[in-house]
C-alpha cells in the first residue's frame, strides 16, 4: 500500500523537551567505542570552550528517536515498520549539543516518494534549545521495501 502523499508538510510537535544528561552522553560515547575526553570529562570539554561535555555528532539520533516513532507508528500513515530500512541520514549542527541542554523537537514529513517500487519517506527534525535557538536539523530517509 502506497504511503499517503497528503502527509507531506505535516508537522508533529512534541510537548516535553529532551533533557540531555552527562551520563547519557558518556553512555552513548562508550557505545560507539569513543574515548574522546570531551565526551567524558567536564574539565576537558570546558578547556575547549564548551559549557559541559559535548555530544558526538550522531548523538542527535537519541534525541530524535522518540520523535520519529510518533510518525512511524502513526496508524494514519500506515507504515509497515518491519519493512523499513534506513536509506540515508544527514545532520546539520547549528551548534554542538551539550549536557544540560533542554531540547525541543518538531518533526516534519518532508517528502513521500516512490522509487523503484518502494515507498520512500523523508523526515526532517528541527531541534531547538530552551531559548528557541536552533541546535540541529536532521534529515532521515526511510525506505519501505515492497512486500512479496
Amino acid at each position, binding site marked *: 500500500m502506497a504511503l499517503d502523499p497528503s502527509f507531506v508538510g505535516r508537522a508533529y510537535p512534541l510537548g516535553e523537551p529532551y533533557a540531555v544528561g552527562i551520563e*547519557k552522553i558518556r553512555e552513548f560515547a562508550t557505545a560507539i567505542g569513543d574515548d574522546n575526553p570531551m565526551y567524558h570529562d567536564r574539565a576537558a570539554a570546558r578547556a575547549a570552550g564548551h559549557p559541559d561535555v559535548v555530544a558526538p*555528532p550522531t548523538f542527535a539520533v537519541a534525541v530524535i528517536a522518540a520523535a520519529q516513532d510518533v510518525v512511524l507508528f502513526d496508524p494514519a500513515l500506515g507504515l509497515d515498520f518491519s519493512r523499513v530500512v*534506513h536509506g540515508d541520514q544527514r545532520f546539520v549542527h547549528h551548534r554542538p549539543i551539550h549536557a544540560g541542554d533542554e531540547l525541543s523537537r518538531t518533526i516534519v514529513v518532508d517528502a513521500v516518494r516512490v522509487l523503484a517500487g518502494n515507498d520512500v519517506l523523508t523526515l526532517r527534525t528541527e531541534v531547538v534549545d530552551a531559548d528557541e535557538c536552533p541546535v540541529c536539523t536532521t534529515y532521515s530517509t526511510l525506505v519501505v521495501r515492497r512486500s512479496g
Partner: protein
Amino acid sequence: MTPAFEDLTVGDALPPLTVHLSRAQLVRYAGASGDFNPIHWNPRVAREVGLPDVIAHGMLTMACAGRIVTDWTGNPGLVSGLETRFTRPVVVADDDAGAELELTAVVGALDQAARTARIDITAKFAGQTVLGKARAVVTLP
C-alpha cells in the same frame, strides 16, 4: 591538536581508523541510542527478513565515520555537518573478532570564506564500501 585551515590541501589524508564491532557492542548501542530493532541483536529475526546474520546499526557505522573526523579535530564541536547513505550491511558474526570496519578519509573541498573543510569518508567492511557519499563539514580555527 586541531589542524589549522591554512595547513590543509584538498586530497590530504586523515589518520586511518580501524574499528571492531562485536555483538556486545550492538546491544550496548541499542540501549544507548534507543534503536531496539531485533535485526541488530536477534539472529533468528535477521534471517527471517533475509539477512545472513545480525547486522550493525547503520547509525553505529555512521558514528564510526564521524569518529575518524573527531579523532582528527580533537574537538567534536567543530563538526557542523555529517551525512551518509547506507549502501551495504555490516554483518557481525557471533565470535570474538566481530566485524572489522576500516575507515579512511580525505579533505574533499575547502571553503576559504567560511573556513570549512569537507571531509570525504570511506568505510569498508570485508573489502567493500558500506557507506555512500559519507561526508563531514568541519569548521576550523
